[in-house]
């Protein structure tokens, strides 16, 4: 092999030096080889190769073509309806007797006895494609790493617009200014409602975490601990976790004077996503370092460190109907939504959405998840879980949809986008009526019980 010249791709396999050689090399080769003939190698010069090969091919072609042609003709006849012209359709005049009156197909007992009606194929809900309401949000900062929108359990939407936090009451439509930053360059980086809906925490660019009492419109506390802007906040009972650009996550117990109960170090860059699990046992954090951490409420090093994302992890959402299920979405370079078992740290599913994932919200009443995206459609996508079939796509925003918040009844979702608008989408299903009825029965039963207890009291 070493002596031969190397064969390059696309070059002819073997080039003959004789350029004038006829393409039909068989005959010429045979002619050349004539002197070396022996009795085992027949002389082919006597054969007319061209004619015989033509004959061979012709034979094959006719054999192959005929059934095809007849098949085609039959098909043509059938489709054109000309076939019936050469046939007469006849039926016997005296028809067969009909089955006795009241005869029921005995197969019915075989196939329909216990089966009941076939369960109706559940069609996807009609999801309105247009927002229900649009609010202006001037000066909303176009910064992927901030968390500027939250919806309280008392139906109040808190939105941070540059240096101020506004409260929009979704029941009455009234707007109030909660706070404004003192310094000129300061801006609010994050807002988060406490579960009671009476307190809201605000993270600022001056590395402060403030807690405000909404009823009195007064600041209750200022929590220090960060050295850079506080871009993510998450409540769990009386614990407030804050993540900042200093890549630390600090757990504050808001009741006590020495409020810092833990500093979670694991990220290398800004923490932009922070969510407590519904059980309050686990804290998920996503950072600009493409890392996703799951922390235990009891402290210590991260339980799990997920490195599967290839861009900043901002969108985080804990599944409300399945424990230990976390959905996370990656930034522009990643574009995927990933599902994690936070008990084992296993990656359950990952889908490429085709666009930056800015925020995620699970539906409370259906197994669905809503994601908001950036360039190029700036859309909201509603997915079925776990099939991840896309149920609906809602467009309307003109710029990336940075934040999502869910109403307390779990039906409406508010989206805040860099086009400085808030849009309200009624995209989630309402609670099943059967469930609601059951709940009301249960509550009335407990009410009765309480009455009877009171009555038996001396």
């Amino acid at each position, binding site marked *: 092999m070493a002596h031969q010249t190397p064969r390059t791709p696309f070059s002819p396999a073997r080039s003959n030096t004789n350029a004038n050689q006829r393409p039909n090399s068989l005959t010429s080769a045979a002619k050349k080889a004539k002197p070396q003939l022996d009795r085992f190698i027949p002389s082919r010069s006597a054969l007319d190769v061209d004619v015989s090969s033509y004959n061979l091919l012709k034979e094959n072609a006719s054999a192959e073509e005929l059934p095809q042609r007849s098949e085609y003709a039959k098909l043509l006849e059938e489709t054109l309806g000309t076939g019936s012209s050469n046939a007469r359709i*006849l*039926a*016997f005049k*005296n028809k067969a007797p*009909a*089955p006795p009156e009241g005869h029921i*197909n005995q197969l019915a007992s075989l196939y329909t006895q216990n089966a009941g009606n076939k369960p109706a194929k559940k069609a996807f809900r009609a999801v309105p494609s247009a927002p229900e309401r649009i609010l202006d949000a001037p000066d909303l900062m176009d910064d992927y790493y901030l968390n500027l929108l939250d919806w309280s359990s008392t139906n109040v939407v808190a939105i941070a617009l540059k240096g101020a936090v506004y409260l929009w009451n979704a029941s009455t439509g009234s707007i109030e200014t909660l706070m404004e930053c003192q310094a000129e360059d300061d801006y609010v980086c994050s807002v988060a409602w406490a579960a009671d809906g009476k307190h809201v925490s605000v993270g600022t660019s001056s590395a402060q975490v403030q807690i405000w009492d909404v009823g009195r419109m007064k600041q209750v506390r200022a929590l220090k601990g960060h050295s850079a802007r506080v871009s993510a906040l998450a409540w769990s009972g009386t614990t407030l976790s804050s993540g900042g650009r200093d890549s630390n996550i600090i757990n504050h117990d808001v009741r006590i004077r020495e409020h810092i109960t833990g500093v979670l170090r694991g990220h290398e860059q800004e923490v932009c996503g922070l969510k407590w699990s519904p059980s309050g046992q686990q804290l998920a954090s996503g950072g600009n370092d493409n890392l996703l951490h799951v922390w235990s409420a009891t402290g210590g090093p991260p339980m799990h460190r997920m490195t599967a994302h290839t861009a900043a992890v901002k969108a985080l959402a804990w599944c409300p109907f399945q424990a230990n299920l976390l959905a996370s979405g990656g930034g522009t370079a990643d574009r995927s939504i990933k599902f994690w078992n936070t008990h084992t740290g296993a990656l359950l599913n990952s889908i490429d959405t085709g666009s930056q994932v800015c925020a995620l919200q699970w539906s409370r009443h259906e197994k669905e998840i809503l994601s908001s995206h950036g360039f190029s459609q700036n859309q909201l996508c509603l997915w079925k879980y776990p099939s991840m079939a896309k149920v609906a796509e809602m467009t309307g925003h003109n710029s990336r949809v940075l934040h999502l918040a869910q109403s307390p009844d779990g039906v409406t979702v508010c989206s805040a986008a860099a086009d400085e608008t808030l849009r309200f989408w009624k995209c989630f299903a309402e609670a099943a009526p059967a469930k609601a009825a059951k709940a009301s029965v249960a509550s009335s039963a407990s009410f009765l019980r309480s009455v009877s207890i009171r009555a038996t009291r001396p």
Partner: protein
Amino acid sequence: MSKQAQATRNTITLKGSTKVVSEFFAYAVNSILYQRGVYPPEDFEPQKQYGLTMMVSTEPGIKKYLCSVLEQMSDWLLTGSLQKMVLVISSVASKEVLERWTFDIQTDKAAVKEGKPAPEKPQSEITKEIQAIIRQITASVTFLPLLNDRCSFDLLVYTDVQSAVPMEWEESDARIIINAADVKLRSFNTKVHKVDALVSYRAEAEV
């Protein structure tokens, strides 16, 4: 057995083939009527044929109808003018066609016209092919939609245009099912007649 006897057994004459085909039709129609539950099962009795136990109607009306239809059909088979036999199952109430069992017949014209002997094919092989079709008819219950309504059946016959229409027969339309789902069944070949079976049924509307 002599060699001569062996030879006659393996080639089929036109008459013999006609008998095989019309007998097959009788059993096939009876099987379909029983398997699809068109008539109550009490009206059927078991009969051994083709190595299978088949249900054959005892209802005098059906027997008479089938008898006369098949008699005429064998005449057509002998002249080679029969192209198709179709069993139509339709709802009594709505007259809607629910199922259509088509038996396409291809006749070896040479055997009919010139009385040329057909190529050899053992009887056992033909029986085996017929057996397969009857088995498929039996198995079809599993995929065909349930006939919920009271149904009646009709036999349509496709003949050559040249052939005369007998007194007891009338022209009919094709009674084709719109949006039908077709399932091709097996076929059998006596070397004189080739019978292809096909069932089309009303596909359930996709929701």
